[in-house]
């Protein structure tokens, strides 16, 4: 019998370098993946991997936040924290997907958008806003997997999809637990307490209605564990795409809007 983990333990797992990264899911699940670079305006952002590939014979667009495993990789991928050009690349690829009728699959794994000087100079907030909006209006099916950390607007930017699916030990939070603890209690050391208060585990998020499904994870993330996990994600894509591709464009958009629209609807009173 698996012991129930605390929220703090799940946060540690969500951030663990042992977890498969976006590129490993892409490699395991899609055929003929071709990475497409650049936002077509300023530059290329490696922290957001974008490209096209084949899923069981269906052409799809794939967008994923990429973290590294060692210092060098993390510098290359900026610890999975995209700059505005990353989000603008995602927008470009989403519009392209819509043009060619390809479903979009996204993988969320970021502590948040990069809070740098240049990021602000190049309009980080507005790039995220646009990405959120473009994705919410996209006329093709969209499925999102939270594979590790889902931090703030930087994660939400590629998660306003038809289906948000979280791995058991992934998290989705308004900011880091450390940030939360220091803002509300002026004490970053109380981050584990913040993990509980924030309701950021996959189970909490499902209960709050901000995700649709939670995929159980293998207990050990070894070769076998990873293979099992990839298989589960693969099956979830299959099942969800089959359902979504049956819908008319109108039904698809209506369903997606309603889901976003209902966020917190019952949490207000007149």
């Amino acid at each position: 019998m698996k012991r129930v983990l605390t929220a703090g333990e799940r946060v540690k797992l969500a951030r663990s370098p042992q977890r498969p990264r976006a590129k490993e899911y892409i490699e395991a699940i899609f055929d003929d993946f071709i990475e497409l670079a650049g936002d077509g305006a300023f530059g290329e952002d490696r922290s957001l991997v974008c490209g096209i590939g084949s899923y069981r014979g269906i052409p799809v667009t794939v967008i994923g936040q990429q973290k590294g495993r060692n210092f060098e990789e993390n510098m290359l991928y900026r610890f999975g924290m995209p700059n505005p050009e990353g989000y603008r690349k995602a927008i470009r690829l989403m519009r392209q997907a819509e043009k060619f009728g390809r479903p979009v699959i996204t993988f969320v794994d970021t502590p948040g958008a990069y809070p740098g000087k240049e990021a602000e100079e190049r309009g980080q907030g507005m790039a995220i806003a646009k990405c959120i909006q473009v994705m919410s209006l996209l006329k093709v099916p969209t499925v999102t997997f939270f594979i590790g950390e889902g931090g703030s607007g930087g994660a939400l930017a590629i998660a306003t999809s038809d289906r948000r699916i979280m791995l058991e030990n992934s998290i989705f939070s308004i900011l880091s637990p450390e940030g939360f603890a220091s803002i509300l209690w002026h004490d970053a050391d109380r981050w584990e307490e913040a993990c509980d208060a924030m309701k950021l585990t996959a189970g909490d998020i499902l209960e709050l209605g901000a995700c649709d499904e939670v995929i159980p994870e293998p207990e050990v993330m070894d070769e076998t564990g990873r293979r099992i996990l990839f298989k589960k994600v693969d099956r979830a894509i299959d099942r969800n795409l089959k359902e979504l591709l049956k819908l008319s464009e109108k039904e698809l958009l209506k369903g997606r809007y309603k889901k976003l629209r209902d966020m917190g609807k019952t949490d207000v009173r007149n």
Partner: protein
Amino acid sequence: MNPFSEKKSILDSVNSLLRPMRKPAAGGEDKIYKCKGCGNKYTKAILRENHFVCPSCGHYGKLSARTRITTVADRKSFREFSRSMIGKNPLKFPGYEEKIRDAEKATGLKEAVITGTCTIDGEKAVICVMDSRFLMASMGTAVGEKITRACEYATKKKLPIVVFCASGGARMQEGILSLMQMAKTSAAFGKHGEAGLLFISVLTNPTTGGVTASFAGLGDVILAEPGALIGFAGPRVIEQTIGEKLPEGFQSSEFQLEHGFVDAIVKRENMKETIGKIINLHRKAKDY
């Protein structure tokens, strides 16, 4: 690294810089305020006449949402929506209800945004005004819901919508539901836009975090008041990340104009007229 840790203290300091100082002796229109820019003292009546911009140094004082509406809407044209809407405590966060009650007592508002319809220089519009005195106008579910309903109303009635943005960012106590308001509002404004309708976003001091990264950044026309702090990450978070001090004026309205993210900086005294003109310039050719 701890990207958001310093945000609140930054916003608090911005807040205290802008809060007019109250002299307890007088009340109402004779109440004396001390300018945070130059230290000169003025009565509320004089400041009101000057749209709460300091007559000597030009410092922009903080406007309450109701006062803001009087500076923009035509007299007696404002009709409020969902006036008494309040949020719940979805995460059962300890002390949250109390915090809301305190904010209500301090501001006379139920939540951090006022929504409704009005005419602006004769042009009919839906208007939303955020009030940073209410928990830093952080975006909780009630804020998201009120703005979304106002936007949906504008879509249904084919009206332009004007949003005066101000926000310290997310409503921490509502966790992920606060974050999802970014998606909800952005989707609603997206539908309004797809219907060919005009959205004017006005950025006031401060507009940061999740509001910048959602509807504030999505206007067809984005205006800003002079000297406002506008950005996604807070200045101290950025300084922490890059390990150096930011230059003077970083993330100001003028900085955002320079970097191409706002269409125009508009003085408070000209705001109503400018918005009226912009709405007027969005009539459809077939309406002639």
